[in-house]
């Protein structure tokens, strides 16, 4: 399994991602510097969290228009898998690889706390480690995670089953209007989506920080197990 983690200036959660892949799958991802002009042979590209270009302008905007993204677009065209977490999700929407946009949190404040996600479908590489309806705890840490898309886009997303992770209460109830459970105010409590092919996934929370009991939980492990099962099959 060949995973490439792309590092832009200001990316800062790449190390967390490396640790998670190593710990859960035993595979060591390679780091790809944003100035590289060609991608190596890869099964999956990961865009990790952070503040690419300081998140100045809009989160992820400048990274989305940097040269390496052309390669990543081509990689997507050829059927490659892509996962964007937090800033990576923002980059994927800014690059139009995923629909919608991430607006400032409804509270207008950065939020770093644990939340619960419900698995909406488990037939993707990213969710097959769970059962549909499973609830898991994960960390969040972002200022702009408030998922938005217009009414038509939302209908399409929901209709096609592209929502894979939703913010939920610890018991699995979904209540988009409750800020305890839907911390950033996302529309329909959407926390993560896939594109129409199911091979490109973006999510705001950080399962990669939840793979070690010492750090409080191993709830994030199934993400990486699922990816490994798909990519080593």
């Amino acid at each position, binding site marked *: 399994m060949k995973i490439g983690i792309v590092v832009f200036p200001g990316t800062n959660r790449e190390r967390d991602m490396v640790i998670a892949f190593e710990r859960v799958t035993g595979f060591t991802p390679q780091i790809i510097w944003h100035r590289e002009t060609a991608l190596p042979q890869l099964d999956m590209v990961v865009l990790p969290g952070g503040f690419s270009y300081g998140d100045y*302008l809009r989160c992820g*905007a*400048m990274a989305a228009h940097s040269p390496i993204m052309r390669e990543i677009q081509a990689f997507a065209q050829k059927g490659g898998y892509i996962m964007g977490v937090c800033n990576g999700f923002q980059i994927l929407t800014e690059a139009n690889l995923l629909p919608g946009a991430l*607006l400032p949190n409804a509270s*207008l404040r950065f939020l770093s706390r644990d939340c619960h996600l419900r698995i909406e479908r488990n037939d993707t590489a990213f969710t097959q480690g769970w059962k549909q309806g499973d609830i898991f705890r994960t960390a969040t840490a972002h200022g702009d995670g*408030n998922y938005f*898309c*217009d009414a038509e886009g939302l209908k399409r997303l929901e209709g096609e089953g592209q929502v894979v992770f939703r913010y939920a209460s610890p018991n699995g109830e979904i209540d988009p209007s409750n800020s305890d459970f839907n911390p950033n105010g996302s529309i329909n409590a959407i926390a993560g989506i896939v594109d129409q092919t199911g091979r490109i996934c973006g999510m705001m929370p950080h399962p990669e920080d939840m793979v070690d009991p010492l750090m409080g939980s191993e709830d994030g492990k199934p993400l990486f197990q699922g990816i490994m099962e798909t990519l080593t099959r």
Partner: protein
Amino acid sequence: MKVRLIIMLKQGVLDPQGKAINHALHNLSFQEVQDVRVGRVIDLEVTETSPEKAKARATEMAQQLLANGVIEDFQVEVLA
């Protein structure tokens, strides 16, 4: 030549910042305020000397990078 881009959230996109400011202004007794929308200004100093061309280029910049068409509209103004 100086060009100004004004970038605002599209009608229909929720603007929590505008809402918060509206609220805060009411608390300060600016009761006449009915609605607040918050956006971004980007002032560009460019070498281009033709206003038309400068405007066209700034439009390109907005489309490619500076505005996000999914949620934002923009206007271009040549300042000087």
